[in-house]
């Protein structure tokens, strides 16, 4: 094992802001986002790729894809664009998905919510008119221990309608 601490330079764009940092290769992307950048809206739940609380979006080949940031190294994000929960609202104006979560009471304790919202954005970016079953499958990588799934599914379905009717972009 290399004893000396080796760092790598990375540059990323998070929520439209460019950052350049030196990171240890073993630093997980979620730790980078939370601890280096101070964006603590992204949560760590299980830390084992199960719960989805750490979900963020990463751009790849012109597409935004939901990924679990506890299962990526920060060095892998070098040169890429990321979107976290902090970049979803425009100032005080909530994103339609956030608004739908509010309207449908799709959160109780709120711990899973940032991951749920990001996974919903990943789903809607790919499929603008999901069926209820598609929403349930699309969010199967996100756990809500308050078991508030009914209202979360309702919220995503309602947000998809809202986005279509108002012709809003899914990715802000």
């Amino acid at each position, binding site marked *: *094992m*290399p*004893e000396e*601490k*080796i760092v*790598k330079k990375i540059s990323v764009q998070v929520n439209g802001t460019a950052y350049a940092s030196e990171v*240890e*290769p*073993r630093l*997980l992307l979620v730790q980078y986002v939370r601890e280096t950048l101070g964006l603590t809206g992204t949560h760590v739940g299980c*830390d*084992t*790729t*199960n719960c*989805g609380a750490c*979900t963020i979006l990463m751009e*790849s*080949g012109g597409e935004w*894809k*939901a*990924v*679990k940031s506890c*299962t*990526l*190294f920060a*060095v*892998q994000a*070098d040169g890429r664009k990321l979107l976290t929960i902090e970049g979803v609202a425009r100032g005080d104006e909530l994103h339609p998905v956030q608004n739908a979560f509010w309207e449908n009471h799709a959160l109780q304790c709120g711990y899973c919510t940032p991951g749920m919202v990001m*996974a919903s954005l*990943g*789903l809607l970016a*790919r499929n603008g008119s999901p069926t209820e079953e598609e929403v349930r*499958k*699309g*969010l*199967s*990588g*996100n756990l809500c221990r308050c078991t508030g799934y009914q209202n979360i599914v309702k919220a995503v379905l309602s947000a998809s309608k809202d986005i279509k009717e108002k012709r809003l972009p899914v990715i802000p």
Partner: protein
Amino acid sequence: MNPRRFQYHSPRTLGDALVMLEKYGEEAKVLAGGQSLIPMMKLRLLQPEHVIDLNNIPDLSYIEDRRGSIAIGALARHSDLERSPLIREKLPIIGEAAEQIADQQVRNLGTMAGSACHADPAADWPAVLQALDASFVVRGKDERVVPATQFFRGPFDTVVRQGEIMTEIDVPVPQGDRVGQTYLKFERRAGDFATVGVAAVVCVDGDGAIASGALALSAVAPAAYRATDAEKIMEGKKPTQRLIEEAASAAAAPSSPASDLRGSAEYKKEMARVFVRRALKTALERAGVKL
């Protein structure tokens, strides 16, 4: 959870990756999707000194029609396969299996080649690729092509040698007018590994007899396996409920599942039989057979 310290390498060509792999030998691990490697590093089940990331090598994400077969590049993600119109048209079993793997986020990163090389006995691709008679292109100093049926040696063990990287998977498109295929997965909860997974690919001839039937099972043996005894029972026969029952029993017979949280060995062996029966029925129906 933090992995042990390691050095990170991001080669821009496959040639550079192979040089690094040669140089660092058994201290190195290859990173593709990372959805198995990184969790194992976090649990410190793996502690490589060098990680060689393939993700910055261009042109490894292809899914290409090669007339009679489909070539899948080492960095094609499960989600690419799930959404590929070419796959949906030519190899629907791959699309069907892809969408049953883990969840949206994991599928956005995880790769078919990575899953094959990781060789988890409960993974979905080893059964699917064996049933399709796929082959793997493995490159080291030379390039070799290994049939999927000879690739998996046991839990997390394959014929890939130190210094080699899987670069491509070639999947022949089943030929015939009446082909039916399915991957049926029994999972205890959403996104879980299979309790049992069954890949079935059948071709029915003009007289309605089974010209060929391929069956492979995952999660019920140290490695996914082809149920050759069951295949022989079906060959040349007209499909009936009784034939399906016989084939299902023969396919489950060589299984040797382990008791764990997903069920007892006895239960899993029975589920193997039940799920082969269901998968065969679906594949035959998709081949236009009325049962």
